[in-house]
């Protein structure tokens, strides 16, 4: 299990670093991200379990900002990643919701936590003016990311997880 966790963590790190090197999707809103590493986190939660998933989320949120050379990012990424994974876990364990919906909720939680951190850091509620943009884009990317996670779980070779 430690080996699986490590391999999945490295996948999350690679995606996280690549994503932060990509140019912003919307140039006027450069803080918007696709949230691709959530594919890995949903996979980890469903295929490996809660403890590996939270370990990966924690290490990824600390390591990606360090690898990219922007340690302030940890203040945003860590609380957002843990809380959104918490929301994911709650919904996944009910077994009532499909992964695209779960991922959409996770992406919205992630965005709102980051806005709260930004509000604390700047000392003003003005940051919440970005909420409409984040809700709209977060819903679209959340659905896409969740569908990708669904496809990966659906077609993941079972043999690889059988030992």
């Amino acid at each position, binding site marked *: 299990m430690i080996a699986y966790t490590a391999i999945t963590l490295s996948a999350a790190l690679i995606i996280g670093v690549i994503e932060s090197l990509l140019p912003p999707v919307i140039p006027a809103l450069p803080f918007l991200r696709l949230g691709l590493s959530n594919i890995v986190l949903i996979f980890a939660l469903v295929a490996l379990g809660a403890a590996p998933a939270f370990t990966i989320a924690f290490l990824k949120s600390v390591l990606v900002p360090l690898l990219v050379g*922007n340690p302030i990012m940890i203040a945003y990424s860590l609380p957002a990643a843990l809380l959104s994974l918490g929301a994911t876990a709650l919904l996944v364990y009910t077994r009532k919701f499909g992964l695209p919906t779960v991922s959409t909720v996770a992406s919205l939680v992630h965005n709102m936590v980051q806005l709260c951190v930004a509000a604390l*850091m700047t*000392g*003003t509620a003005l940051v919440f003016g970005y909420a*409409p943009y984040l809700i709209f884009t977060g819903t679209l990317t959340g659905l896409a990311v969740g569908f990708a996670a*669904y496809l990966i779980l659906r077609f993941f070779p079972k043999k690889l*997880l059988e030992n």
Partner: protein
Amino acid sequence: MNSSNQEKRPKLFSYYRQSKPFLRADILLLAVLLTAAVLAAVFSYTGKPLGERAEIYIGGELVGTYDLNQNKEIVYEIGITVHIHDGEIAVTESDCPDQLCVHMGAISKTGDRIICAPNKFVVVIRGENNDYGAITGRRQS
């Protein structure tokens, strides 16, 4: 249902492998989420009037209000330079690592804002009658 007997692997794995991408309970939740998204999109993309002046906040404190119809460069000792030019305002230099504020470019419409979280720096554009003040709940003047 349980095609797997490995104790290490959660049964969740088989469950989500065999289920459809959307389940029945999704309809309600997705309806709420998509409605919120559509409302947010409508709100974001409806044309906002051009602004009159820019308010600058550092650490949550209003430190200056500038008319946008002038050419001016303002340097803040926290490491930020802003440029006002032809009704637009932009952060042109910042010492923060991510440079998000610089990449946001120039803004000109009422309610638009540029935020540099590492420097605790915010620029907001205000119009004549402060229509957007209510949204932020932080009118100070």
